[in-house]
């Protein structure tokens, strides 16, 4: 059986240490979730890079479209008042 037919692609997320969120580290092929976890352990945490792993089937991820990047993220562009630097505060007021 070819790899293409048999081994799905998994995306690997590593929590580097307690208190931090899982971060995408890369991907690998594995026949099932359990093997994906074991392979991810060997591939992405050989030097203590993580304390927790997530493996997610790449096919299960829904991504925003790069082509619609403009229209999709534009709504945030003209809302500068969402940032603290937008506001005019007298220079001598403390703790603001």
């Amino acid at each position: 059986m070819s790899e293409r037919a048999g081994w799905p692609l998994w995306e690997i997320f590593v929590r580097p240490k307690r208190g931090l969120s899982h971060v995408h580290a890369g991907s690998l092929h594995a026949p099932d979730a359990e093997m994906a976890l074991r392979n991810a352990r060997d591939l992405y945490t050989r030097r203590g890079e993580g304390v927790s792993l997530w493996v997610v089937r790449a096919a299960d991820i829904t991504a925003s479209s790069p082509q619609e990047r403009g229209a999709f993220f534009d709504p945030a562009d003209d809302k500068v008042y969402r940032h603290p630097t937008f506001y005019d505060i007298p220079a001598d007021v403390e703790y603001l």
Partner: protein
Amino acid sequence: MYGTDFGPDDAAGTGPRPPAPDEPLNAADAGIFDDLLEHDLRIEPRDEMPEAYRSTLVRQIAQHAHSEIIGMQPEGNWITRAPSLRRKAILIAKVQDEAGHGLYLYSAAETLGVDRADLLDRLHRGTQKYSTIFNYPTLTWADVGAIGWLVDGAAIMNQVPLCRCSYGPYARAMIRVCKEESFHQRQGFELLWTMCRGTDAQKAMAQDALDRWWWPALMMFGPPDTGEAATGGHTAQSMAWGIKRFSNDDLRQRFVDMTVPQAEKLGLRMPDPDLAWNAESGHWEHGPIDWGEFRRVLGGDGACNAQRLAHRVRAHEDGAWVREAAVAYAAKHADGRSRRRGSAA
């Protein structure tokens, strides 16, 4: 080779498959690629990109990946004969790292719409290249040191600039690889440093390893690509695309400048009668490289080409039952899970 693009694949018609992006490309967005490059921003997998950029990357990343896994062989030969448990553990860890580097790189290549199984097929059929350096034999234990020191050293020199490569997944793979490579180089130097302080026979063995590996290591940076040679190869285009950041010749020069004092420290003699310090340029100048030898080894006529490929194919075929068993187990398991879910409903 180890991050140097060294020419097209061998057989015509076996080139990369056409792109298989998740979505049709949007012609209205056509300017974005140049725009991103101009601002030194990264290209990501689903971005619109010229086909030539994509196929160049596929070729280079695949060659790089193949080099990593074929590169396990020359050193792997010595695992059972390592002189101490410490050296054996180090060597196993290094060879395992190289397998990991291969996997990072195959993953990076796959983001460009190719399939790892296809790339391996092409390696096995001999239509896609890997670094010529691994077609030289490892005759003595000192060769393990020389490989770490020189071959991994040259690889680092090539790979560090690739951490800023314009293609995001390749650059990210390189960052991971470079972090791991520094131990590879250091353990090699330490090995030779130990031998050079040992018996006369051990020191002679270290010298012999340097004599055999020095010139092939210099060839790892690829043919000359500056001065008169600037127009011949891929360098100019790769640089314009932000894939390559420095010329082969620049990187080679840096490697020579870095390595000559290290050889002095070891008390070893560089096998180059023309090697001379140029006070004006502030660089070590080396003698002529035998590019005829490079082309011969690249073309299949190295000491170990056939052996490396045969070993690789055998390992792949011998492992087929494991891959099949894993798939069968996964399928059986998945059936069980869905049955359990079904009965609970």
